[in-house]
């Protein structure tokens, strides 16, 4: 009896081993549509996607993956990863990619690679629609392809602010009988958490290592791009002599009357100074520029006004790779004072702090009535100037607190509360992030480190 069982078990083992070996051989023949004989999962990445992908990110994700992966485990549990066809669906800030997993010449699953800060999280994505799209992109005879991008976010957190990409493929036939051409369209909006925690993708098979899923800590991601820290962002500008020179020019103008403006490119290169009229300046097209500055005249309110805020939105919208927070608008103003130098300068800068969808709504759907907004802003200022908590003495212009409260009140009136950062740049170069206190009756200035 016992002998029989042992024999049966042995037979079963041999049979299993045979099956396994056949399966492994199959892999070698089938798994690689590009014909390379090396193992796909560890092959050097070179994008074959029809679209532009975040190659920097995909390459780094592969590096992390290869460091932690147990190839046998991956092959046995998932299949082979075809990095060359990984897609970032319009995201270029090292945040998101989908990597197809191949088994028997077919995409069977996708690995979703999500970076948050310096951590990389790997998830399984087995959306049948998306898998079918990858199959068409890799194995279909693609005769046409297209992509349209839009801003969208599913999660209110700023860190998870993705671009939506809708990609369309037309797959044709080579005169094969029975072949029907078809079109596949797939929209991916980065990492979207549905019901329940996402299923972790486990490349190591080691329970002691994070699988990336659920409460796990993720994997260390090398050299993440600099986070959009409002202090970091402005620091580079303030140390740039070209930036400083232009701001000084505007400061000088602000004491004299007449308006000037200037725009700055992403690398800090300023435009020529734009000379406007006594009370107006035309900054021109925002395209190709990161932001702009202009001076307010001696009689004007020393704070960014509704048209200035709307201009900032246009700069934000034009930022490459969805880095909308980089767009900015600034103003400098001045007034005589009994203080050292006898002139007090006001230098404020704003940038957008909301999601791409919100930006798009504010810019395109709101149909701002600027004349009405300006009137509201001026009436607020006029009323605030009668309140001694906003002016140093009755009849004086709004003081710093008053100006900042006016700005936040204006934002609120525009429905943009909390969506715009306000920074004050002091004459000595110290930058302060300005926030409205919860009571709404005062502001706090937190200096950048």
């Amino acid at each position: 009896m016992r002998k029989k069982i042992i024999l049966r078990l042995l037979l079963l083992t041999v049979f299993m081993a045979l099956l396994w070996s056949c399966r492994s051989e199959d892999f070698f023949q089938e798994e690689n549509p590009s014909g390379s004989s090396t193992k796909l999962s560890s092959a050097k990445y070179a994008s074959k996607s029809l679209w532009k992908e975040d190659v920097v990110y995909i390459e780094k994700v592969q590096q992390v993956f290869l460091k932690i992966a147990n190839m046998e485990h991956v092959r046995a549990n998932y299949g082979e990863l075809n990095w060359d066809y990984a897609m970032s669906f319009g995201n270029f800030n090292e945040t998101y990619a989908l990597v197809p997993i191949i088994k028997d010449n077919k995409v069977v699953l996708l690995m979703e690679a999500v970076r948050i800060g310096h951590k990389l999280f790997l998830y399984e994505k087995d959306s049948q629609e998306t898998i079918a799209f990858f199959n068409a992109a890799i194995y279909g005879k693609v005769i046409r392809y297209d992509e349209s991008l839009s801003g969208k976010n599913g999660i209110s957190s700023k860190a998870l602010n993705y671009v939506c990409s809708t990609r369309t493929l037309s797959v044709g036939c080579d005169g094969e009988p029975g072949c029907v051409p078809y079109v596949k369209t797939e929209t991916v909006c980065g990492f979207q958490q549905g019901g329940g925690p996402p299923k972790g993708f486990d490349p190591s098979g080691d329970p002691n290592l994070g699988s990336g899923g659920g409460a796990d800590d993720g994997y260390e991601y090398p050299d993440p791009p600099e986070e959009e820290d409002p202090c970091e962002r402005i620091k580079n500008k303030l140390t740039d002599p070209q930036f400083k020179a232009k701001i000084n020019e505007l400061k000088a103008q602000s004491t004299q009357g007449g308006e000037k403006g200037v725009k700055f490119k992403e690398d800090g290169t300023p435009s020529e100074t734009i000379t406007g009229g006594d009370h107006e300046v035309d900054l021109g097209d925002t395209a190709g520029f990161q932001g702009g500055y202009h001076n307010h005249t001696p009689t004007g309110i020393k704070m960014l006004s509704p048209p200035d805020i709307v201009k900032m939105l246009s700069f934000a919208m034009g930022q490459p790779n969805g880095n909308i927070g980089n767009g900015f608008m600034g103003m400098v103003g001045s007034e005589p004072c009994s203080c050292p130098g006898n002139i007090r300068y006001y230098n404020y800068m704003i940038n957008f702090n909301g999601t791409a969808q919100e930006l798009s709504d504010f810019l395109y759907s709101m149909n701002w009535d600027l004349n009405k907004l300006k009137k509201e802003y001026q009436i607020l200022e006029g009323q605030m100037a009668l309140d001694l908590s906003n002016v140093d003495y009755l009849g004086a212009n709004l003081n710093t607190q008053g100006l900042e409260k006016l700005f936040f009140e204006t934002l609120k009136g525009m429905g943009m509360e909390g969506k715009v950062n306000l920074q004050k740049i002091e004459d000595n170069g110290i930058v302060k992030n300005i926030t409205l206190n919860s009571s709404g009756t005062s502001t706090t200035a937190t200096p950048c480190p």
Partner: protein
Amino acid sequence: MKTIFFRVIIILELIINITACKAQQTQPLNTNLKDIISNSYLKDVNNELDNYEGNFTANFDDKTINIFITKELKKPITLQTKNYYQDVLSIKYIVKNGNDQVLQDTKNMSIPTNQTIHTIYSFGTSPNQNLVLLYYGGTNCGIGWGKILLKKLNTNQISWDYRPNSSLIDAASCPPSTDKTVYLPVIKDLIFTKQ
């Protein structure tokens, strides 16, 4: 779906009817914008505005400025998301150069009711400073939008302080050929004398 839509419409209409039937509330003339209740009336109970009515003239920078100040009762206003009424002063003006040629005339200009450009309306007073506060919507393209403060000096004289703001304009909405000159005197303490 359709029934829900209709129900929403009916409820909305009911709400509108109810608010329309409500007795109008009167609030002080200088109620802060954020404290204004929809549909209320900011009434000049103390007739403060009456002191400023009349036609006044001043000379500045080789120009003659004539201003015509009238009081308008219960002017309908929409600001922020509120509709309300307010007693206001309205200023129309004619600016002439040294040769008596008219440079700008808003007195004989036809201005649509909802337009703010070329208009000057008061939005409050500061009785202890003897001031009335007005908003100027600016000249063409809204250029020169800002605050005007009028101080009553005596029965015949008022002092003028106009503080225009800066404007970011663009060629699409404000063609380069537009006359962008602000003709009102940009100055503090200009004395206007009653005619």
